[in-house]
């Protein structure tokens, strides 16, 4: 009877998880397998029957692509610089929104609103705000005697502007941090206060360790997102000027839709997949040292 019940439970488990397995297989495994297959061919289009196997030729061509190095460096900038800045920005916003001040619920709503606006609309707004000639930002700065700054047309400024844009739309991460902050037991703060710790010490000794699992989660999600950054770079400055915001995924898009070399685009995608997997693996390994799971200690 017990055995039958266990089998039945297993059956029900798989039945319930079936929609996910089907979706995962159809929309990830099959396209991924197809991509791997075509990456070793010279197919111009996915699904093409007119192709031959070219071995690692696409990967070699990928390295020879004149924009490969620059797009990879730009993407690494968005990961190495962008992810810590955006995560810190989220955390600071969450800490501010965790304060007990009048009307805090309203502030929380306001800070989350940009996340609800479609990214395309947000980018268009930012193009207007950051336009060097007619933008409201330069108009505001001119009050303080600061001359026109070409935010979107300068090679040195375009990446920081994109990172700032990410902080602007970081409501979801803020929400995660806010939930984590709310879950930190009050008595821990009372205990360190009795021990004579100030607010900064309490933050580093109590808050950060207690919300470290959430930080890890946000860092990993943000890292994956920034490795795959595309929309912001495309719409804000078409990856320019002079490839300053040309990301790796933008280059994949160009290979597929401008050069009509889908097999090359697939090779680039697989390279990126491997890179993201490697970085995520390293992050997970390193997390053992920095992340505190209350339930495990």
């Amino acid at each position, binding site marked *: 009877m017990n055995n039958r019940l266990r089998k*039945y439970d297993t059956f*029900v488990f798989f039945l319930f998880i079936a929609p996910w397995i089907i979706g995962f297989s159809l929309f990830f495994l099959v396209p991924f397998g197809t991509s791997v297959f075509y990456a070793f061919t010279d197919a111009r289009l996915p699904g093409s029957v007119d192709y031959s196997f070219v071995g690692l030729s696409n990967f070699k061509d990928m390295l020879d692509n004149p924009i490969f190095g620059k797009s990879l460096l730009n993407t690494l900038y968005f990961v190495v610089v962008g992810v810590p800045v955006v995560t810190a920005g989220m955390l600071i916003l969450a800490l501010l929104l965790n304060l007990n001040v009048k009307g805090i619920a309203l502030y929380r709503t306001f800070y989350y609103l940009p996340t609800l606006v479609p990214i395309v609309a947000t980018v268009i707004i930012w193009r207007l705000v950051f336009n060097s*000639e007619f*933008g409201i930002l330069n108009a505001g700065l001119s009050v303080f005697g600061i001359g026109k700054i070409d935010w979107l047309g300068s090679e040195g400024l375009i990446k920081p502007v994109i990172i700032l844009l990410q902080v602007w739309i970081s409501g979801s991460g803020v929400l995660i941090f806010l939930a984590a902050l709310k879950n930190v037991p009050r008595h821990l703060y009372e205990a360190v206060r009795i021990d004579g710790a100030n607010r900064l010490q309490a933050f580093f000794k109590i808050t950060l360790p207690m919300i470290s699992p959430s930080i890890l989660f946000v860092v990993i999600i943000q890292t994956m997102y920034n490795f795959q950054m595309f929309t912001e770079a495309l719409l804000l400055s078409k990856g*320019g*000027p002079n490839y300053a915001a040309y990301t790796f995924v933008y280059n994949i898009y160009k290979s597929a839709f*401008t050069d009509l070399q*889908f097999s090359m685009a697939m090779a680039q995608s697989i390279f990126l997949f491997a890179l993201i997997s490697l970085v995520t693996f390293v992050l997970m390994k390193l997390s053992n040292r920095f992340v505190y799971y209350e339930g495990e200690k």
Partner: protein
Amino acid sequence: MKTNGKRLLSLFALVISVGVVVSGCGNNGNSNGASSSPSSSPSGGADSASESQKPAEKATITYSQWGTAEELQRTQELLNKFMEANPNITVKLEGKDWGSYWDGLTANAAGGTLPDVFKTSYAYIEKYAELGIFKELDGLLAENGFDLNNIDASLLGLHKYQDKQVSLPIDANVIVWYYNKAIFNDPAQNPKGAPVPSLEPTWDEIIDIATKLTLDKNGKNPGEAGFDGNNIVQWGMSVSPGSTMDWFLEPELWSNGAKLVNDDGSLALNTPEAREVLDFFIDATKKKINTTPAQIEGLGGQVNLGITTGKVAMNPGGNWNTTNFKEANVDYGTTYLPKFKEAKTVVQPAGMAIASNTKHEAAAYTLLAWLAGPEGQTELAKQGYSIPANKAASEAYISTVGDTNKIFLDAQQFGIISPFTAKKTDLVWTYGEQSLKNPLAGDGDLDAAIRDLESKLQ
């Protein structure tokens, strides 16, 4: 027992929900297929062979093109006339803007869902022909006795791939120079009384006019002492050679005896004649007579629509832009593109092709032959916005547009012959704008940009 009952209930709910999801997906799939598949037909999807033999059988085909809402509306009017003449064929129009049109076509090619008939540009013929998306037309045209003599051989040549006709030219877009008459006529906007440009202006003439029409907030122009270049409220002209290489920079280079690319596909910008042209535009922008890329962005982002803002006196554009000017209620004047030595321009013949995998070949051909033939071309000419490629419709065009738009026909005599090669496509649409946009506006090292471009085009 109670637990088992709950389990059964949850199992039942799950089966129902999975059923709903699966049937939902199924419906979606069907509806997607119906809307995007070129083979969808009320006749029940006759195969191409049977339809070829029975062209009178009812068929629904898709026709795709790029264009603004108004252009699509005009195409719909054309298609309505076609459907009146061919009641057995229903044509569904799919429209996109220029940028997303080509991505969409690529995605359609990848997904096997190409529209039966679609618009093509001479610049993309080779690129998409290599994907095998075009049906070869030679056989169909010969079988049906289509008169190709009415279409200029050079236009037909631009729509061939490996000597085979894969697309038929339908209209010839041409680039000219526009000015906003209201700015010239308003003493507040034209305090120096600059005259409108002549029909075939030189750049010296244009610079003189543009200088007088560039005003700072105090009404001073760049030729006057005390001009405040940081607070310009009106620009004499708006050109962006770095981001409009194919339709503006190239004819201007030819105008000065230079070229954009050499015959072997290498970059040709390092000759003295070419550098003279590049330096000229850099100088005009540095003197604040011409808009910078950031100013163009702030004025709406499209350099060929500058005069619609009321803040730009002159800009280059295509004959299709007259639609935009009318929509914006701009009273515009037209001249040939300004010249260095000789007047030059670009003629961009758009065409029409049939998908290689269409299941409605006969219906698709009927539409193509009508749109590119005398009947459809005359209807197109009567609308007055497009220059028909078929000479049988020339009279209809001239009698419709009168003298106002006759310049678009006349300008074609200055058209340069510069076919699109793979390297030129790379230069114009992949590398050129990134490298040259800022340097050609006076911001950045032009020599380094040219060296960078040369290395990328090797």
